[in-house]
């Protein structure tokens, strides 16, 4: 006889006590870690909102005395060079609005192409029989083991020979066609879908491609979103390759533009308020992503390591 409301006393041995010294110490340590994580972000935002004239007097205060949006307006290119220099700008002409546009384009092209092509290949690997399937799949997975430090020189030479230096095409090329992890990840998911639906469609005379588009893909929205998000985050943050092939200002993505902005400042003090405004702008999409879909982000990242 069990009733739902019977008072169930937990066995004394592992009743959860909230205020043991150990737990308090652990909370304290965890709190400290969170503080260490958030403090630099706080200082970025604070500095971005600060007037550069106050840089020396209130650099280690936690709040700006006279907050201003001038730094953001300045680095987004909505100010003339003279105005900008008057406000402490280095005179370096960096247009973060354009860099942001480039970053968005770079990331979207890669996510859309890489995930579509990976899904196609993964479906073939999971469901279709063709000669060389297992060898090819092993090679694709093996490509994950090739470190970037081996391929970057030949890839650079290829892009250069194709005349694609300083172009969007050259920047996205190595990422947009194939990525071993995306293929591997989606194949695993496709293998887990029951075959019944596909076999029914096959008996109705549907082609494999039709089945892929109209049966398999609609069932795979969640894993597609997961892998798209992981790829998107990685590409938004990618520095090395765009730094090698697209240093021209017109093509720079955000991380490259930030690096350029920093290195263009003459000896002595960089334009900290401008730099931090640019940093804050670049951080924004990531924070937004976490606020809107935090759980999915956390689970995707955990999954990517737990395969």
């Amino acid at each position, binding site marked *: 006889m069990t009733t739902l409301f019977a008072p169930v006393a937990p066995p004394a041995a592992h009743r959860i006590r909230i205020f043991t010294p150990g*737990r308090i110490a652990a909370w304290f340590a*965890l709190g400290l870690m*969170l503080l260490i*994580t*958030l*403090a*630099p*972000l706080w*200082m*970025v935002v604070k500095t971005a909102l600060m007037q550069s004239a106050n*840089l*020396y007097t209130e*650099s*280690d205060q936690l709040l700006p005395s006279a907050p201003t949006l001038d730094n953001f307006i300045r680095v987004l290119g909505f100010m003339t060079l003279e105005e900008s220099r008057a406000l402490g700008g280095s005179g370096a002409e960096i247009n973060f609005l354009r860099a942001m546009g480039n970053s968005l384009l770079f990331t979207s092209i890669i996510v859309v192409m890489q995930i579509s*092509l990976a899904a*196609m*290949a993964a479906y*073939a690997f999971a469901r*279709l*029989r063709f000669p060389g399937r297992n060898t*090819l799949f092993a*090679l694709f997975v093996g*490509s994950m*083991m*090739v*470190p970037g*430090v*081996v*391929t970057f*020189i*030949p890839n650079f*030479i290829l892009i*250069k020979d194709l005349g694609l230096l300083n172009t969007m095409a050259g920047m996205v*090329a190595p990422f*947009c*066609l*194939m990525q071993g992890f995306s293929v591997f990840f989606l194949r695993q998911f496709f293998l887990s879908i029951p075959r019944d639906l596909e076999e029914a469609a096959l008996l109705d005379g549907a*082609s*494999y*491609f039709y089945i892929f588009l109209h049966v398999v893909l609609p069932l795979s929205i969640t894993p597609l979103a997961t892998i798209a998000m992981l790829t998107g985050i990685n590409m938004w*943050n990618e520095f*090395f390759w765009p730094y090698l092939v697209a240093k021209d200002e017109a093509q720079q993505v*955000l991380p490259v533009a*930030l*690096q350029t902005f*920093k*290195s263009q400042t003459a000896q002595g*003090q960089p334009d*900290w308020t401008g*730099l*931090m405004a640019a*940093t804050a702008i670049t951080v924004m999409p*990531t924070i937004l992503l976490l606020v809107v879909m935090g*759980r999915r*982000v*956390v689970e995707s990242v*955990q*999954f990517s*390591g*737990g395969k």
Partner: protein
Amino acid sequence: MANHAPHALSRTRRAETLTAWALVLPAFIGFALFYALPTLRAIEISFTDWNLLRSPKFVGLANYAAMLEDGKFWQGMKLSAIYVVLNIPLQVVLGLFLAVSMDRLTKSLFVKSIVLLPYLLSNVLVAMMWLWMLDPLLGLVNGMIDGLGFDRQPFFGGVDQALFTVAAVNIWRHMGLVAMLFLAGLQNIPRNLYEAAALEGASEWQMFWRITLPLLRPVMVFVLVTSVTGSFQIFDTIAVTTNGGPLDSTRVIVHYIVQNAFSFYKMGYASAMSMTLCVVMMLYTVFQMRVMKASQNDLA
């Protein structure tokens, strides 16, 4: 399928094969162009003398021989190795600590999001933030050190501090990721193991060493292999903060390779070093997997 005529069967099989190849083809082109051929080409380039202007000249093993004599190559390897040693143990311990604390204390998504946040920011961003935090003149950290009555520190600007600083910044960026990976692993450990151990009178400390840690082994192998090989290829943070300086104190191996390729235009020599680095990392990976018996699962 018994009532199908053999002819019809072979036709569906043909359609299947053709569809499969059509679906795989674009990804295969990507694989061939940007993974397979470049890997072979890197080996080939490493046997040449090539500055991209003249045509490459075959020099046999000369690049590899020069490499063994090159003090800067060894210095780069040494710095990368020191960096790994500074970086990994602390990152793993802190990540494990965070994971165990979160597992015990909270399931809050807010906490998890903050813990993971630094990893979601690019190396360049993180470098920029810490350049500001650690600025000798205006940075908050030096302000605090000064306030406590100690001398201001150069951090990125100090010959004997720069590499430590870069390592600290990367620990800050990665410990959250390591924590989330361990946390996922912890949640796969059956709770009844702990209940049984508690009934036997085991202490928390014993449970951690006897149950938690051994059962986290597969995650541990993954974390170690990816973070050690990743750290050995450290480049971004250094390109932004110290650019190899001061006095070459952060000229790690990948920075030296990139410098040879794109500042000195020694493509052959740079490739020879890349291949060597790749082999070193592969040997490490195999060794690590062997030592930790990565393929065995204690729960199975």
